[in-house]
């Protein structure tokens, strides 16, 4: 962010960024000799402008108070209570949190989430990086490939879920392909061992966003670095390892961070795969192998256990917060920072 936080003494004209500098030169020259009536007019103008800013910001301010701040505080309070909709909350202290951590479902959901992150993300990022690296040099036909890799990511998650549910079901086209190789098709949606790989498969199909972001990062790498590496006798792999990877590491860092937050909230495809609700409960079948954090919380919510669901939301929030902070604090370890030093 380029914004400079204004220090209290500065006149409003001198604050801010972009273009402020040449404006301030003109004002700075005349500021010393401003007569008092002009100052009063200026103060009036300042007040008017503050009011304008407030009016412009009002949609966000109201939305923030009503749809963000109030719900957060509310759910924080509820997380210490037993509460059902339409009836008052009863304070129970930390009971919800204690119950949560002795609950097998939570561990199952967390375990599944971790599985999806540990095995899913490297696959997605690896293939996205491969595709981006092949498309970075300007060549005929690249536009077509780029489009083909990107389009799956605009398919809504429930549609790609339904699609892969069909592709992978017994007798589905992909099972047919397995059959061609003489292998037995796994029972993707019955065998707990295969349910999560199926989930990873769908999300990998939709890696278009990652590819575009990586592609933009690769385009920004100066050609001269590669030329210098070539002069040093670097081969294709060495160039990738010592030029591409370090230079792209800030982008990968960003993808991993947002990806982790995304996995914690993953919901739609798992919901479709596990056939959603059975007897009024979210199942996360087979064998709970698809039960994610978000699904579990919705189950608690649908059971009317509002206090419990709120406690879980707060645990989720804390996990997200800790992951973000730990990653940002250790950023220098993961990310090559030479570009920032040059800048």
């Amino acid at each position, binding site marked *: 962010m380029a914004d400079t936080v204004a220090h209290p003494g500065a006149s409003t004209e001198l604050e801010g960024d972009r273009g402020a500098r040449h404006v301030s030169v003109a004002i700075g020259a005349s500021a010393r000799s401003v007569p008092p009536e002009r100052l009063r007019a200026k103060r009036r103008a300042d007040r008017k402008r503050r009011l304008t800013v407030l009016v412009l910001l009002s949609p966000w301010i109201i939305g923030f108070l009503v749809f963000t701040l109030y719900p957060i505080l509310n759910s924080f309070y509820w997380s210490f209570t037993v509460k059902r909709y339409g009836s008052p909350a009863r304070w129970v202290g930390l009971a919800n949190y204690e119950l949560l951590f002795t609950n097998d479902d939570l561990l199952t959901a967390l375990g599944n989430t971790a599985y999806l992150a540990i095995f899913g993300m490297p696959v997605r990022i690896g293939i996205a990086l491969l595709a981006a690296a092949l498309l970075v040099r300007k060549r005929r036909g690249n536009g077509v490939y780029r489009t083909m890799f990107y389009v799956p990511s605009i398919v809504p998650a429930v549609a790609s879920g339904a699609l892969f549910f069909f592709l992978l079901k017994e007798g589905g086209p992909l099972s047919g392909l397995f059959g061609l190789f003489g292998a037995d098709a796994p029972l993707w949606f019955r065998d707990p061992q295969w349910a999560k790989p199926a989930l990873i498969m769908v999300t990998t199909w939709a890696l278009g966003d990652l590819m575009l972001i990586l592609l933009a990062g690769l385009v920004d790498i100066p050609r001269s670095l590669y030329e210098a590496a070539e002069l040093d006798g670097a081969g294709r792999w060495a160039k990738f390892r010592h030029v591409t990877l370090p230079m792209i590491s800030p982008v990968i860092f960003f993808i991993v961070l947002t990806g982790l937050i995304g996995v914690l909230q993953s919901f739609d495809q798992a919901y479709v795969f596990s056939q959603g609700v059975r007897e009024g409960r979210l199942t996360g079948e087979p064998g709970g192998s698809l039960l994610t954090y*978000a699904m579990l919380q919705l189950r608690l919510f649908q059971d009317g256990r*509002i206090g419990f669901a709120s406690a879980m939301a707060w645990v989720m929030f804390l996990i997200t917060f800790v992951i*973000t902070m730990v990653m940002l604090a250790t950023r220098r370890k993961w990310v090559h920072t030479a570009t920032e030093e040059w800048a």
Partner: protein
Amino acid sequence: MSRSRRILGVVGQHSVLIGLAIIFALPFFFMLLQSVTPIEEAKTSVLWPSTFDFGNYGEVFDRVPLARYIRNTLLVCTLVVTGTIVSCVPVAYAFSHMRWRGRGVVFVLVLSTMMLPFQVLFVSQYEIFSNLGWLNTVLPLVVPSFFANAFSIFLLRQFFLTLPTETIDAARADGASEFQILTRIVVPLAKPGIMAVAIFQFLFAWSDFFGPNIYLSDEANLTLAVGLVRLNTAAARLGESNLTMAASVIFVMPLVVIFFFAQKIFIEGVTLTGTKG
């Protein structure tokens, strides 16, 4: 590097690209194929149908109130896009072309709300909408969009910052009010950026499942996303995946069409969110 080795390298790269492209296109191919597979063959899982039965598309409309779903979805999308643009453009303007004390701090606050998991919000939001008597209407899905969201504010601000400050400063010196500058200069100049935000919001509202799934219950009020999931569950028991796939095609096709018409805007938008964050 010798000439032949270089050719080999190019051939190798192209084969990987072609291989990947086939893998990425294959699900679409099977989706289209299954959507025209006759019902008896859909149940027996034949890979290639004997005839193409386009009647499946009509059958889906008979089986579920698909026309209603489409109408509801379009209503939600239109209102969400309108609300987002109307509310976020002024906010983004205040964060890009006006200077005021505390702007940096408030902007960080806006961005930090993007990090909040929606789980923290929806349990309590549900109560608000329930108390207002808005359950089973589109209101919980569209009203919040009239109160600005951080992602769109951020994206619009990035676009607004690329506009020439000189023009805006000149207009201000000529005595134009901030509202005049916003409506007569910034909005016309930033049309591509506003379009990008509109498209993203449309896509989001069209695809959203979580919100409609908890707020809508009556069959006649459902959106396409929820309708598709219910159809999928029902059709899976009956082995009628051809109907699910026909409905999926209807659900996905508009997005693909929008993508092809607005490819450039799309790609710039995605790139902007990823690299300038």
